[in-house]
């Protein structure tokens, strides 16, 4: 497993630049803040996301998932804003943000349980079409959608499971399907929330390979618990602690940061 990760690291490592130049920034936040009652979950966060794999780490309750929810419109910030390709997207509903090209997966597997694997992806591919509102034609008539669905399925390694009902998939494959659904929306940025949590070693390898493959085409933002994975796969790491950015930089720099070590040890 270690070798696999190392290899990936080599692959993606090539594209890394330390400071992302202004033109490369796809998504950025400015002074993003969110309170839940007395708790400040996210506090004045400034993020700049560029190409490659950008990981967000931090102990439980650091505000990682809240950050994702703010980026994708599931939550509205109390102050500050999110910009995507120069457009302010905070305040937009989640579907509008998705339509602009930001895809996400969820920490707890989020698929369409009673539908077939094929249908899970098909409906996501279809989401880009106005035809989704058409209730007078057969869904089978959208041939392009079917073709693209098959393509996505093979990309995430589910081509042999197309007719299986999603809830009957083995857990590791459900996580792949979750990622597949995100990819099917033709995104230009992918946010993955702990894609390997609760997954067996073997499946973890598969998923990491998948992420690496994706990151070659698209920028990926990753929330991940496993420090080893993070260090091996990321081009950039942001450390959140109690809603504040504690440290930011390439893996080596973050690894050596004393505050990070302290926070992490304290957090666990």
């Amino acid at each position: 497993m270690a070798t696999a990760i190392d290899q990936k690291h080599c692959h993606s490592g090539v594209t890394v630049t330390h400071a992302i130049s202004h033109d490369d920034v796809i998504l950025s936040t400015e002074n993003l803040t969110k309170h839940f009652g007395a708790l400040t979950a996210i506090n004045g966060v400034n993020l700049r996301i560029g190409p490659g794999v950008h990981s967000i780490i931090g102990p439980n309750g650091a505000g990682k998932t809240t950050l994702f929810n703010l980026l994708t419109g599931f939550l509205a910030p109390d102050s500050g804003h999110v910009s995507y390709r120069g457009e302010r997207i905070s305040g937009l509903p989640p579907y509008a943000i998705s339509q602009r090209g930001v895809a996400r997966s969820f920490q707890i597997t989020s698929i369409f349980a009673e539908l077939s694997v094929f249908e899970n992806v098909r409906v996501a591919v279809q989401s880009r079409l106005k035809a989704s509102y058409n209730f007078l034609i057969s869904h089978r008539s959208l041939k392009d959608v079917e073709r693209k669905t098959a393509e996505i399925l093979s990309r995430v390694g589910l081509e042999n499971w197309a007719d299986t009902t999603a809830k009957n998939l083995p857990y590791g494959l459900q996580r792949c399907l979750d990622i597949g659904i995100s990819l099917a929306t033709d995104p230009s940025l992918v946010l993955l929330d702990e894609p390997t949590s609760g997954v067996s070693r073997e499946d973890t390898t598969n998923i990491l390979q998948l992420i690496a493959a994706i990151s070659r085409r698209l920028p990926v933002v990753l929330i991940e618990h496993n420090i080893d994975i993070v260090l091996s796969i990321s081009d950039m790491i942001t450390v959140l602690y109690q809603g504040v950015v504690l440290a930011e930089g390439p893996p080596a720099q973050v690894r050596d940061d004393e505050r990070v070590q302290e926070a992490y040890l304290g957090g666990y």
Partner: protein
Amino acid sequence: MTENTSSRSRAILIGALLAMAVLFPHIAPYQALASEVLIFALFAVSYDLVLGYAGMLSFGHAAFFGLGAYGTGIFLVKMYPSVPLGLLTGLAVSTLAALFVGYASIRRRGIYFTMVTLAFAQMFYFIAFKWTGLTGGDDGLQGVPRPQLGPLDLGPEINLYYFVLVLVAVSVALIFRVVNSPFGKTLQALRENHNRAMSIGYDVDRFRLIAFIISGFFSGLAGGLYALLLHFVPLSALHWSTSGEVVVMSITGGMGTLVGPILGAVAIILLRDVISNYTESWNLVMGAIFMAAVLGFRGGIMGLLKWRR
């Protein structure tokens, strides 16, 4: 793969259903009951679009059924004796009502959605109850005519049955189409996982609203036909118990299958009619059937059929 065999078996199923529908009034206890069964089958199918496919437990569908009936009835009684125009009026009224109720309630989720739909339906009931000049109040809207339709005399029950059959068959076919359209597939996705559907770019509330309106449209058609069948509109068409009835039919038959709610409507209406001829305790019998249905064959009649297979 199984595409061919499944489409052939589907064709056989549809053919068998249609053949049965044509013969039905001759084997049903009486002809008018056969029409009633069809009308409630349509009501249940259109309700299933909302409950079974979009996953919204509406408890206010009596409003659309009842307003369809009143719209049709009032037009026929007070304005002009034409069946198509009457039905169109009923459809317009119920669709508008569905738009209004849907718009107000669609953002609520779960049980709160259910209760808002109930609240609006109760208000329509109250308005119909009070506006006696227009609706006849609790005496019902009496004396709805069944004017000649071109060469077709709708007076005899058997003629009305075939008229109803044609409209119901076309409607059910349309609803089947809706369910298997890109739109219908989206509905099922958002029923399964609301947040996921939103995160892949679907304006979930909009889909729910459209589904609600389509459902209200066909419920209104069922209501309009009911007015023709009865020659009058009972106020009870708007009562919450009518909503309860269609929910029960859907669940008993098997939600999210379309065929299930049809079977549910057929079974419940026929059973009730027949049982009530033999015993005053038909409520006890129906209650026992519902309980046994849930305990015994889960997933409704359709679940039972699948399980047998």
